[in-house]
């Protein structure tokens, strides 16, 4: 194979046909579905008189609408109950595996597919959810799709896609203690902007990326879409293979060695050429917090809210809108800002290592008076592993609520939501207006350790002194 990027190699392997006008029909190796974006797709499939072409290549779970307090059926919310019942009926009718509540394998779709070994290098992965970019951490080409495209994948196991350009984001330097993959991606988005990645797949590479664990790589790729890149990926390496080995859906026996050889050959070649390259020094990154209403409006915890003069002219209208919505004065420090709610969880930061980092801050401390703090494991498996380590007890002793798995307060589709003008410290991925369920609610994105630091101090706080 000639020198190329992983993106190019995987694209060519999955090319089914060239379509009129220059788009490509791309085979989808793994299709993940959930209760929110699939019901209309199944209905459309039925309307067209079509069936599911490869039911064994689609896997379902339920995550967005599940309550995180009591998950007893039927749910208190009849709309949520109808959505789950519809998913169950569709999966049963078409022979699709559903990891349902209490199965031991339910959880946020972008948490369970990796932990079950479903997501593997060299695959194309699609799901009706923009954070599907998460799966690129394995060297898969993974992207979010809409419901009409879910229908297309169900019908044909393929999609009409326009090929992306590839930008290499090269990162060197060691992340400081107390600075995590979340800070790195917030820093990248802050620098390149929320539309900087439109039209690109982002390849994250370099010594800093190679040193990241799989869970850290997932956090990084998860938020590629927040920088406009529909696809983000990391080349597969020994870290990837060590994570996958022994997982339920990973190859085993003789197939394992064959798989590793194939996966290794897919990594971008040393002399591959990229459409663009950007370099970052990880050593200079501080714990990063968003102050505004897009994930690109981030600053180091030791910085102040940018003034209009410090803001490029193009971005000033958005900055002014953000000052008003967030009720923050330009030039004011972000550290010390009081918060009302602290949320640890989501497909960005709801994995075991995230909970460990947050628990290390919470251990022996107390949630500040009047503040609501809760921890939502990303999956039933994450919950079980965390409980086996006693992390739930650490959080409970510190005054956090320990919840059941789901998307929770990342978005407003279940009972977990902000009220009124509450301001949250959140380990999730979007700080859009109204995102957390109140039309005037405010969100500060940060790492799980920073959320824990905010919880025990009642305000935005640099986590670094708390873990030294």
């Amino acid at each position, binding site marked *: 194979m000639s020198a190329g990027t992983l993106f190019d190699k995987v694209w060519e*392997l999955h090319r*089914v046909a060239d*379509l*009129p*006008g*220059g*788009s490509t*029909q791309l085979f989808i*190796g793994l299709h993940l579905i959930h209760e*929110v*974006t699939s019901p209309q797709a199944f209905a459309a499939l039925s309307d*067209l008189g*079509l069936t599911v072409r*490869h039911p064994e290549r689609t896997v379902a779970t339920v995550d*967005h609408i599940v309550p995180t307090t009591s998950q007893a059926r039927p749910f208190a919310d009849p709309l949520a109950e*109808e*959505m789950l019942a*519809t998913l169950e009926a569709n999966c049963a009718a078409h022979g699709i595996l559903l990891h349902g509540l209490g199965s031991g394998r339910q959880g946020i779709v972008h948490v369970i597919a990796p932990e079950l070994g479903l997501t*593997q290098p*060299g*695959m194309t992965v699609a799901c*009706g*959810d*923009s954070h*599907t970019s998460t799966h690129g951490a394995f060297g898969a080409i993974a*992207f*979010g799709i*809409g*419901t*009409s495209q879910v229908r297309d994948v169900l*019908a*044909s*196991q*393929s999609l*009409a896609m*326009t090929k992306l350009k590839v930008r290499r984001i090269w990162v060197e330097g060691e992340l400081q203690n107390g600075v995590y993959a979340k800070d790195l991606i917030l820093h990248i988005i802050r620098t390149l902007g*929320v*539309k900087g990645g*439109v039209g690109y797949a982002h390849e994250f590479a370099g010594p800093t990326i190679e040193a990241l664990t799989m869970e850290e790589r997932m956090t990084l790729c998860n938020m590629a879409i*927040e920088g*406009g890149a*529909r696809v983000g990926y990391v080349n597969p390496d020994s870290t990837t293979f060590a994570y996958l080995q022994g997982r339920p859906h990973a190859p085993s026996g*003789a197939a394992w060695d*064959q*798989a590793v050889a*194939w996966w290794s050959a897919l990594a971008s070649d040393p002399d591959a050429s990229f459409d663009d390259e950007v370099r970052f020094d990880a050593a200079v990154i501080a714990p990063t917090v968003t102050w505004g209403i*897009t994930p690109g409006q981030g600053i180091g915890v030791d910085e102040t809210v940018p003034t209009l003069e410090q803001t490029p002219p*193009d*971005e000033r*209208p958005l900055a002014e*809108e953000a000052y008003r919505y967030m009720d923050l004065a330009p030039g004011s420090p972000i550290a010390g800002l009081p918060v009302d709610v602290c949320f640890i969880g989501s497909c960005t930061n709801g994995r075991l290592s995230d909970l460990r980092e947050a628990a290390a801050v919470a251990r022996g401390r107390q949630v500040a008076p009047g503040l609501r703090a809760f921890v939502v494991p990303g999956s039933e498996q994450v919950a079980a592993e965390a409980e086996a380590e006693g992390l739930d007890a650490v959080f409970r002793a510190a005054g956090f609520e320990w919840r059941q798995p789901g998307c929770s307060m990342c*978005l407003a*589709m279940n009972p977990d939501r902000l009220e009124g003008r509450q301001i949250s410290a959140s380990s999730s991925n*979007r700080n*859009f*207006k*109204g*995102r957390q*369920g109140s*039309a005037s609610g405010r969100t500060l994105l940060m790492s799980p350790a920073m959320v824990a630091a905010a919880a025990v101090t009642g305000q935005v706080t640099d986590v670094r002194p708390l873990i030294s």
Partner: protein
Amino acid sequence: MSIPAFPVGPVPRHRGCGVAVVGDDIDTDRIIPARYLKCVSFTGLAEGVFADDRREQAGAHPFDRPEHQGASVLVVNGNFGCGSSREHAPQALMRWGIRAVIGHSFAEIFFGNCLALGIPCLSLGKAEAQALQAAIAADPSAELLVDVEGLQVGLGTASWPLQLAAGPHQMLVSGQWDGTSQLVAHDPELRATAARLPYLTGFGA
């Protein structure tokens, strides 16, 4: 106000009044807040379009202004439709009456979701998008002629060039934007692709 029929077949052009929603980075949570996604059908989504912004602006939002009722061409600025992949966003816009979107730039997933409904997302320069928005404000009753095939939009005596990638352009003009049948028809090619993917064949072990 009756809603025009949903797109079917070729979309070479569209004629209708404009409505401008001003601002960069308007995300799909704002186009339709998540609480409206608790449904198993898209049918009732029109009521949720820009719901929180409209409530906040108490009648002053462009989608509530009397002069924009019946408008079918939405004119926006940069990175419109970023964030969540929810097709509910274009579905809500379509069910409100929007049949074409013109703006400086679009988020990719939103663009693709619109294309799958037969709604073109057409690009033009930053200043040109603002000029078009100003022209709509000056005369909301004037019809825009959106020439998808010829890639320009006219309003009165003025016109602006539009951009659309070749693939989507071809799909809209030919009517092949609803491509499920085309994908399914490539059965031999789908089989051949599946057969060469090692992870579908046990890695040859």
